[in-house]
């Protein structure tokens, strides 16, 4: 029952924010804020979390963990939006140029819908998906192979990786733009480089840290090389691979932002380009809108990958600490 009260308070946070925005007058130093988009988004949040809350009630215990996670996230977001609205939008603290109210920021999604929400976001997501997915598809099998063959690892792969991997992928950007036929491809290429090394290195590390007796056990049981890869090496190194995938994603995002900033334009938009471009023009509302959007993309992406990870690593004992 205690948690019901707590969750009700969290759910109502968004409703309160919405009501405050509608009924409390704006601060004198920022009159006539366009409120529509922010109100809609608060209403959507409210409806979604309320729905989740009800779903949790119906499902009972089995969804407890998931409801808990959503609620923990909601309390952070709810408090953030509420305080932001009250302090900046309604009380008028801080200067309006650098600290726009949430109403002004969210209105960017309407006024700049085509450029920011449609073109920049979709292009960025596609670049990320392509660069990152190609990196994953190449890095994991190569990592497994190199990890399995000690001689190749020690004499070739390790020395090469040691030399090449630490080079910051960002410095390839100007050259990649020069060499590759178009900027889009150049950006994908550096994302690929950025994501490839962490995934590859962690895959190799995963295989080499695997207890060799698993491999020997598979050998005495007559496993073919193919079966060894699919049933022993890959699942056995998966925890380490996942660590690499996460670092790879973070690096991919960093590289993406910089690469888009260098190569992007109105014709080749992207979230990274959008932020850097409007930073030069002092449009802080647009910058914050784009940053929030990037955050949103990251949250969705990691949520999907966490779900996959939970499913694939079910065999690991949980709650060791």
């Amino acid at each position: 029952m205690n948690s019901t009260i707590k969750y009700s308070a969290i759910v109502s946070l968004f409703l309160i924010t919405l009501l405050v925005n509608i009924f409390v007058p704006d601060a004198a130093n920022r009159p006539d804020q366009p409120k529509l988009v922010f109100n809609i988004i608060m209403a959507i949040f409210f409806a979604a979390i309320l729905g989740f809350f009800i779903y949790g009630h119906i499902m009972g215990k089995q969804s407890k963990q998931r409801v808990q996670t959503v609620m923990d996230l909601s309390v952070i977001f709810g408090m953030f939006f509420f305080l932001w609205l009250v302090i900046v939008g309604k009380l008028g603290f801080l200067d309006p140029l650098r600290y726009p109210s949430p109403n002004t920021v969210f209105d960017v999604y309407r006024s700049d819908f085509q450029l920011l929400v449609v073109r920049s976001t979709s292009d960025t997501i596609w670049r990320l998906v392509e660069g990152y997915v190609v990196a994953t598809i190449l890095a994991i099998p190569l990592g497994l192979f190199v990890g399995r063959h000690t001689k190749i690892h020690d004499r070739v792969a390790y020395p090469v990786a040691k030399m090449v991997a630490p080079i910051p992928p960002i410095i390839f950007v100007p050259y990649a733009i020069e060499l590759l036929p178009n900027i889009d491809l150049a950006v994908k290429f550096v994302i690929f480089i950025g994501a490839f090394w962490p995934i590859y290195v962690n895959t190799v590390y995963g295989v080499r840290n695997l207890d060799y007796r698993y491999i020997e056990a598979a050998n005495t049981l007559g496993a073919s090389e193919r079966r060894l890869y699919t049933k022993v090496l890959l699942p056995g190194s998966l925890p380490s691979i996942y660590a690499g995938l996460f670092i790879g994603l973070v690096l991919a995002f960093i590289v993406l932002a910089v690469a888009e900033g260098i190569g992007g334009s109105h014709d080749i938009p992207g979230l990274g380009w959008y932020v850097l471009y409007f930073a030069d023009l002092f449009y802080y509302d647009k910058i914050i809108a784009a940053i929030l959007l990037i955050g949103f993309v990251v949250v969705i992406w990691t949520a999907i990958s966490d779900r996959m990870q939970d499913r694939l690593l079910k065999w690991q004992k949980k709650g060791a600490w």
Partner: protein
Amino acid sequence: MRAMKAVEVTGVKKLGNGKVVLENVDMEVNEGEFVSIVGPQACGKSTLLRLIAGLDQPDAGKIKILEEEVSKPHPKVGMIFQETLLFPWLKIIDNVTFGPISRGVEKVEAEREATKWLESFGLAKFADKWPYELSGGMQRRATIAMMMVNQPKVLLCDELLGGLDLITRNAIADEFLKLWHEKKPTVLYVTHLLEEAVYLSQRVYVMSAKPSKIYETFEIDLPEKRWEVPNLRFSEKCADYVNKVREAFVEAMKVA
């Protein structure tokens, strides 16, 4: 009729990191025998077992399994590694079918066979569990099922019962003896517990550490169905054997 030699080790020498790990080891085990190998730590027991399993090559000497020279893992040899070695990422049933499917048995057929073995160990209801969800004793039983399903002619066990509490240890030891009596695989059993070696086997090899070789051999003359004799473990005869082996063991440690 001459009994077939299941394992023949002649003059085997093994170097590792420039040091002599095994020096001139000789051993002969007939088909269907249960023999134990005991010795101080780092005397090369595990290395010897790995060589017999075909996972590594000796630097000198010969190893024959079922009168064939070993160069790679033999399909009729099963090896149980130190501690449990169920694949933690495979469910119990998939662990047990790993061997048969690897050797080309159809999945359905392999699962039928595996289920039979799991049932005989009282593990049928754990078929769909992950290894970590089983107790240490259950894991050990599953490991034995995982080996026996391949119908090995020779079974190599490296500290099969290590890390278990005494009661579980003794219980599984008896189950294992019954299984051996029924299927009669040749068993090479490495352990550091002398009582266990004496209780389980027909012959005990004592190895010395420096040089690493067979120091002394003891024939153990106890009834084959040992689990039927009440308190055999604590009998005088058993204690006598253990004492003799212990004396040899202490001597073997002095040789350096």
